[in-house]
């Protein structure tokens, strides 16, 4: 008999995992929507966020300072990648972009293995967020709740900026029609770089926050990249709302799947994706920011 408490624990864990995936998928979706670039190195920034985070927590001895520094460092790395590698490829074919970003992902994974080794490293939860609380009898680690809160807050902030601010309307305009937006007086390459760097920063943030839960190891990059790609495909390419709900669905599916049908957990995801692609090839949500 499966207890209600266990179900609730798995549900909350799944939601926290889903929100981390959402932060990753949101960047992937935004970058694709705006630049028409499928960034296969997006998961690498998640992994690197974890590795650099673990190193910096050791040096700075503060979880929060390390979080801030990690996001800034990885964002800077993203800026270099955008300006030096991606920009010359914007008007080339998808295949060229895929080859470049896939190659970059392989290099970053090997580089990570060379620097940090293959061992799974973990990050200690900060003092303030240790321990667990009881919710309706279910025992839930405080850190998972913090991840839930951070994910919801960031998601809401992202939605607000995109839908309610002028910056957001410029970005949505760029997603819909690059040329028209340039002809209205906006410097598209600068906006592209901004969106790319922001997406990378979100990935690094998610990778850092995930480190205490998932651990960090070479291979994590492709593992989360595939989940993020599934989310973006099922949610509808370029739909942030779609990415949000599908991330939660996938997080919870994974959590329950691993608890109750470990052999079928991954299979269930692909089954959902195949079904969506067959029945609604454009994804569950129409492309439309947000």
């Amino acid at each position, binding site marked *: 008999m499966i207890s209600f408490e266990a179900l609730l624990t798995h549900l909350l864990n799944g939601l926290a995992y889903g929100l981390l995936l959402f932060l990753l998928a949101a960047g992937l979706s935004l970058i694709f929507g705006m630049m028409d670039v499928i960034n296969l190195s997006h998961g690498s920034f998640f992994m690197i966020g974890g590795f650099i985070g673990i190193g910096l927590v050791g040096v700075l001895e503060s979880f929060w300072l390390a979080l801030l520094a990690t996001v800034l460092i990885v964002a800077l790395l993203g800026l270099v990648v955008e300006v030096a590698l991606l920009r010359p490829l914007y008007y080339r074919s998808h295949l060229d972009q895929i080859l470049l970003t896939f190659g970059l992902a392989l290099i970053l994974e090997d580089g990570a293995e060379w620097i940090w080794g293959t061992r799974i490293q973990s990050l200690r939860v900060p003092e303030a967020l240790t321990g667990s609380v009881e919710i309706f009898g279910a025992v839930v680690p405080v850190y998972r709740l913090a991840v839930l809160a951070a994910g919801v807050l960031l998601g809401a902030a992202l939605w607000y900026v995109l839908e309610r601010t*002028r910056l957001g*309307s*410029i970005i*949505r*305009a760029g*997603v*819909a*029609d690059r*040329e*028209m937006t*340039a*002809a*209205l*007086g*906006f*410097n*598209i390459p600068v906006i592209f770089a901004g969106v790319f760097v922001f997406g990378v920063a979100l990935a690094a943030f998610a990778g850092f926050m995930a480190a205490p839960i998932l651990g960090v190891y070479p291979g994590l990059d492709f593992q989360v990249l595939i989940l993020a790609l599934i989310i973006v495909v099922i949610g509808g390419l370029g739909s942030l709302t779609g990415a949000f709900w599908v991330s939660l669905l996938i997080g919870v599916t994974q959590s329950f799947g691993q608890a109750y049908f470990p052999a079928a957990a991954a299979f269930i995801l692909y089954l959902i994706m195949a079904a969506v692609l067959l029945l609604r090839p454009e994804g569950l949500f129409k492309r*439309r*920011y947000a």
Partner: protein
Amino acid sequence: MLELRDVHAHYGSSHILQGVSLRVGAGEVVALLGRNGVGKTTTIRAITGLISVSRGEILFKDTPIQDEPPYRRARMGMGLVPQGRGIYPNLSVREQLLLPPDRNGRWSLQEIYALFPILRERRRHAGDQLSGGEQQMLAIARALRSNPELLLLDEPSEGLAPMMVKRVGEVLQDIKRQELSILLVEQNLSLALSVADRVYIMNKGVIVHECPAAELAQDEETQHRLLGV
């Protein structure tokens, strides 16, 4: 205001503009006419910087701009109403009107709503919920919002019902009275002749005829020969 000197442009290997020269004076309304596929839209794209010029010079307010990126040309005071209207399906009417960067001038949101009452009514609707005529009004209004000194319009009557074509004509008359310089590409000859001061006719990538609009209105032979009317 605007001058093109021997402008050449290519799409891939095809040589679309083969030496276009034309000028639009301050406060002048100039129509660029010609059959389909003679390079009218490409001329507009070359002026706005959406296609690069392989040879020749484009002067805007006496400054060469052929090497400037599109956004800088827009900020110098060029407004574009593109072919197909360029309406964002995912932005509301109001968002699209607030989008253009602030260049001081008379076209405030209130002014725009006074000229286009329908846009005030529809301000909360997304671009893809508008009719073709409403989209065209929005495209013109959005271009005006950047307070341009030169307005480029590419086929504003395309795909519109006769009633709406008439409305576009009235709007263009209104705008003309604001002393704006306008370059108008148009297939609808009577609309073009009703607002233009002067016309150029293009054929196969070059300007083949230039005359006052009133003169072309009388010259049925030229209309027939170059426009196939």
